[in-house]
């Protein structure tokens, strides 16, 4: 306790130099928490949004379904197993049928993925209610805002849709944009036209067939022949890997801040041990062991971290609050970025993140304070008292 007291007294006695070092250290402390908080927020938002818009509580894929290979879509469209039907009826499983198609907005030609989903589904946030249409007239479809911009279409615009049925026969029909929705999940938006499942099954001559089924949390996981279950973790693998990669990239910034602070502490400690050798000798003469003096200087250096946490808390807390509640806007379209990314990103600052960062900074600071302090143990106290240690 007395070491803490004397170390803190020494530190505060050092004046402006202490506070400059403390500020730089607090900067890295706040930066680490903030950047990690934003990335955690992104990760959480990406999972939440993907669950709400695309993956539900997991998916069953037909055995040959490969979302990255459109040429397998036909072969992976299979009949929905009977064991799934009651759950589909209770809207706890949502079948999705996917096929390739082409649209002709204003005479232009653009390839799209036509995804069939029940108009009365309640599992995903896609506004599918408008997909119910008359048997005559253009077929209603809905698209994401990014896709609408790509197609240069607005609500109620009409265009021709062309696709191939099960037998390979080309068919065409007029479609109408019945809904445009905004989502942060690009795979729901970019290049996708949503259409009523029953209609798509009729159009492709694939009644009762689907490529995948989206599961609600109420449904347990079961083994079904010809279908493979994909968990949320599996489905989010690539997104989370990207967030992790970003996390490593972002670390560079705060490692630079941290290095600057550590360099300042190391330099201060090294100089202090040379400049304060009379003090060191006097402490030994008064009855401290060399080990105690080493601890004194190590604690003194580590106190920078303590002060940085106090200072960081003073100016960082409002910033954390702002980033958690108001968030930060990114000038990046989620669909351009390729992964779920909201317009406004909120930092998620958890106690674990704060405590983990505090422990990390304390350990690093203690280490750089200890390294120069080790010299004290080798110091001759009689020379140190006279300030003669070289």
């Amino acid at each position: 306790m007395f070491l803490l007291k004397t170390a803190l007294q020494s530190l505060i006695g050092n004046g402006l130099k202490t506070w400059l070092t403390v500020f730089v250290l607090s900067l890295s402390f706040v930066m680490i928490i903030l950047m990690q908080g934003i990335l955690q927020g992104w990760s959480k938002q990406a999972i939440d949004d993907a669950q709400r818009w695309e993956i539900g509580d997991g998916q069953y894929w037909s055995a040959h379904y490969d979302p990255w290979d459109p040429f397998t879509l036909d072969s992976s469209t299979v009949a929905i197993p009977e064991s799934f039907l009651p759950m589909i009826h209770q809207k706890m499983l949502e079948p999705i049928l996917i096929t390739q198609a082409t649209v002709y907005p204003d005479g232009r030609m653009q390839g799209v993925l036509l995804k069939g989903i029940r108009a009365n589904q309640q599992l995903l946030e896609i506004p599918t209610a408008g997909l119910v249409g008359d048997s005559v007239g253009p077929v209603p479809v809905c698209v994401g805002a990014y896709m609408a911009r790509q197609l240069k279409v607005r609500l109620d615009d009409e265009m021709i849709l062309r696709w191939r049925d099960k037998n390979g026969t080309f068919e065409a029909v007029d479609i109408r944009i019945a809904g445009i929705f905004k989502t942060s999940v690009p795979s729901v938006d970019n290049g996708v036209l949503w259409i009523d499942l029953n209609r798509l099954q009729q159009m492709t001559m694939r009644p009762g067939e689907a490529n995948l089924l989206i599961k609600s949390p109420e449904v347990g996981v079961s083994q079904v022949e010809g279908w493979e279950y994909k968990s949320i973790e599996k489905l989010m693998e690539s997104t989370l890997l990207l967030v992790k990669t970003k996390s490593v990239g972002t670390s560079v910034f705060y490692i630079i801040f941290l290095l600057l602070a550590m360099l300042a502490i190391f330099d201060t400690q090294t100089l202090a041990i040379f400049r304060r050798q009379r003090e060191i000798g006097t402490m030994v003469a008064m009855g401290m062991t060399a080990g105690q003096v080493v601890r004194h200087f190590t604690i003194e250096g580590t106190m920078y971290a303590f002060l940085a946490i106090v200072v960081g808390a003073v100016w960082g807390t409002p910033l954390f609050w702002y980033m958690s509640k108001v968030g930060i806007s990114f000038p990046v379209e989620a669909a351009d970025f390729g992964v779920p990314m909201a317009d406004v990103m909120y930092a998620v600052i958890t106690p674990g993140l704060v405590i983990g960062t505090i422990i990390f900074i304390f350990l690093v600071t203690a280490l750089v304070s200890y390294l120069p302090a080790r010299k004290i143990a080798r110091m001759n106290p009689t020379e140190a008292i006279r300030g003669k240690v070289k």
Partner: protein
Amino acid sequence: MQSIVEVQQLTKKFPVGTGFFTALKEIDLSFTRGEFAGLVGPSGSGKTTLLNIIGSLDIPSSGEVVVMGNSVSRLTARQAALLRKQQLGFIFQNYNLLPVYTVYENVEFPLLLLNLSASERKSRVLETLEWVGLTDKINSRPAELSGGECQRVAIARAMVKRPVLVLADEPTANLDSVNSHNILKTMLRLNEELKTSFIFATHDEKVIAYLRRIIRLEDGRVVADEQVTPTNT
């Protein structure tokens, strides 16, 4: 009289280049409780070296130094620190006050090492500062004090734990005549009131005038050891 320091056949050598420099040669001395003694001699005569060995800051090359029953050469670093912490006080030529601490904190420091309670520390520090006449400076830092005041703080710091023995190395070297006499009178009073032993290393005539025992050193040898009547009391 009870012996507190026994020095027998003490020799101290320091490595210099490829050889050795002998700072102390076969010294035999004994100090009893309540002494006000001085190691007197020119620079390089071995005064400080002898003081450092008695203070267990250094060890003999040969011979034996026993301080309050502890053989200095056989003490571990921890035991030597314990001896200094509990029994010895040091006063240095350059005061060696801890610059970022206030007067109060400087004087309190040895008591923190002894793990005394806060109330005990406070009463002892204030009492000691009263002895040296610095109660009005308790919140000042060393940079705000005169040389005489700094040395009085150093005396208070050495005395606050009521040591058996105070080792003072050239305590008046940086002080003017008036301050030197004030300091010496303070130490003499503490010696008489608390029976604390003082051993000085000095060549200052002002200090010598207060001593009751003068041990003259030349080239690392004791050339005279005499009880004297202080000319200045």
